[in-house]
């Protein structure tokens, strides 16, 4: 038992252990990274840039994205790197802070629906019987609903807020991971090592946690990336239609503001108002797509069978 970590003798040991751990993590990461193709590497770097941009938004921008800091529709210049919008707010700040919005929504939706849906699927697959049948019916119906039109209608009624947007997106994206996790749980359940574990007296929850969930995790991770890019698209689409949270400047919201400006296409304003969010969204989605394709390729032998529906 190490009780006093702060004693000098122990400090050296703990720091050594920490260094070892960091080393292992970094070699782990670098081996995964080296498996990626060039596209995948570009994707990872791109995402890293956007994440850094979002994380250090207050450092790399001079202005608040919500404050009027210049003249209306200033062209890009030394004071405002990307110019200002019609209210005189700095576009570069909006882009940096908007990255937070897109990433938060993408990740939140992906993790909630990916792992939540996955857990539901695994449970249903493991329990089987009526629960499983019932869940399959629900999944079938959820997947055949026209998701985007319904999202529009529901968010029009619920009113615009970040939580509502996340809720709606989760509502329409949990079904796919649930279905895949279920089919995998069904397949894994039949293995003899599960029967063996059960015969040794393992509780269902123990089997799920120790044997089934770890097997499904890699596939869920790929799905999480897919879902996050879908969520980002859907959020941008909803915001573009004017259904985003008006108090937060996401990239979709910027597109909405810019295209809503009456004579945007007849003036040069679109060059610094409309292009940056458009460009950033496309870059973000392409990066995510590259990563997801590479992950799929790396996990291929497993995924090809299990994703086949």
């Amino acid at each position: 038992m190490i009780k006093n970590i702060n004693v000098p003798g122990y400090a050296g040991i703990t720091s050594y252990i920490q260094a070892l751990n960091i080393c292992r993590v970094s070699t782990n990461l670098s081996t995964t990274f080296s498996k990626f193709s060039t596209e995948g590497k570009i994707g990872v770097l791109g995402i890293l840039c956007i994440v850094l941009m979002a994380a250090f938004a207050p450092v790399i921008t001079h202005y608040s994205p919500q404050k009027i800091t210049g003249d209306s529709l200033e062209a890009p210049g030394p004071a405002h790197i990307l110019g200002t919008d019609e209210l005189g707010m700095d576009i570069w700040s909006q882009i940096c802070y908007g990255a937070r919005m897109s990433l938060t929504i993408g990740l939140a939706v992906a993790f909630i629906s990916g792992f939540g849906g996955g857990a539901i699927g695994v449970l249903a697959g493991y329990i089987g019987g009526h629960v499983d049948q019932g869940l399959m019916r629900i999944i079938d119906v959820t997947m055949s609903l026209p998701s985007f039109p319904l999202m529009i209608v529901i968010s029009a009624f619920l009113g615009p807020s970040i939580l509502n947007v996340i809720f709606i997106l989760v509502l329409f994206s949990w079904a796919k991971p649930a279905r895949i996790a279920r089919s995998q749980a069904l397949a894994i359940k039949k293995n003899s090592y599960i029967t063996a574990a059960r015969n040794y007296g393992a509780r269902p929850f123990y089997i799920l946690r120790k044997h089934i969930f770890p097997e499904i995790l890699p596939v869920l991770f790929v799905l999480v990336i897919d879902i996050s890019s879908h969520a980002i698209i859907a959020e941008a689409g909803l915001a573009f239609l004017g259904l985003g949270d008006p108090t937060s400047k996401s990239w979709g919201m910027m597109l909405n503001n810019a295209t809503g400006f009456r004579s945007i296409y007849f003036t040069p304003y679109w060059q610094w108002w409309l292009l940056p969010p458009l460009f950033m969204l496309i870059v973000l989605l392409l990066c995510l797509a590259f990563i997801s394709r590479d992950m799929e390729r790396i996990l291929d032998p497993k995924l090809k069978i299990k994703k086949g529906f």
Partner: protein
Amino acid sequence: MANDRNSFIFRLVITLFVILVINFFLPRMMPGDPFSTTSADMPGEDIIVMTEEQRLYYLEYYGLDRPLHEQFYTYITNLMKGDLGRSIFYRKPVSDVIILHLPWTMFIVLGSTLISTIAGVVLGTFSAKNRKKGSDRMMMTGMIAFAEIPSFLLGLVLLLVFSVHLRLFPLAGAITPFAHYSGLAEHVWDILHHAFLPVLTLTLAQLTGVYLLTRNSLITVTTKDYIRTARSKGLGERTVWTRHALRNALLPVVTRTGFMIGIMMGGVVLVESVFSYPGIGMTLRSAVIGRDYPLIQGILLVIAVSILICNLLVDKIYSKLDPRVSI
């Protein structure tokens, strides 16, 4: 198989029912009642305050004082009669508004489906023939990268490049307003000119799916024994590809085309908004902005029903094309 088809139809019916229920309950679950929305939010405008008597009259008139299941029954029977309620903004029946705008949407959706299917099949066949060569690999990479850009962002890019920068195509609308046409040809040209970019956007958005499907299914089919048999019978390459390989490889493409129409009905809302194309998508956007709830619900219903009809049609066509299914 019969069981499978029954469950397919059953699923469609359930889906339609779920949409109807959502449509019915969403506005009724919101706080307040419809009469409070008649108040204006601009300070200068008049706020209509109803007396309690008037309110009760309207509640009764619209049947809102009756139990929910009765309301639901009335809602369904009204729908059966084609009565979707009245639009708040347009001040006419929702069905009239939809009928006015639906043809434009049908025009670009069906047009782009047709074009993307043909182009996808042609490109996919070309790719499958040149498998593992440079041209195939380049095409694959390009197409896959394209597919990742959602249609409305692609539409914005096309709009900026071709309409704003190059000024080749109109910025908005489906026809030139107040135009006098000297003949039918000019009228058709005007419509095509306006529809070009929206159709191109939707086409590009779904091209990759058709392309990949055709390519993969052709590659699978060409390894089959009957292709070798056809070749050994001395049939020309052309006949082998078109009559033996393509015919069988296209089955999944047909299914996909049908389901794609469904997916596209979602994307078309955004694409029409980008190009201000006066279809139901654009109407939905303005209804959302104006909070015209009856119209929103009506459009959702029309979109949902058209998706279900497409799925049903695909099922029918598929069993015609592939006799094995309908046994």
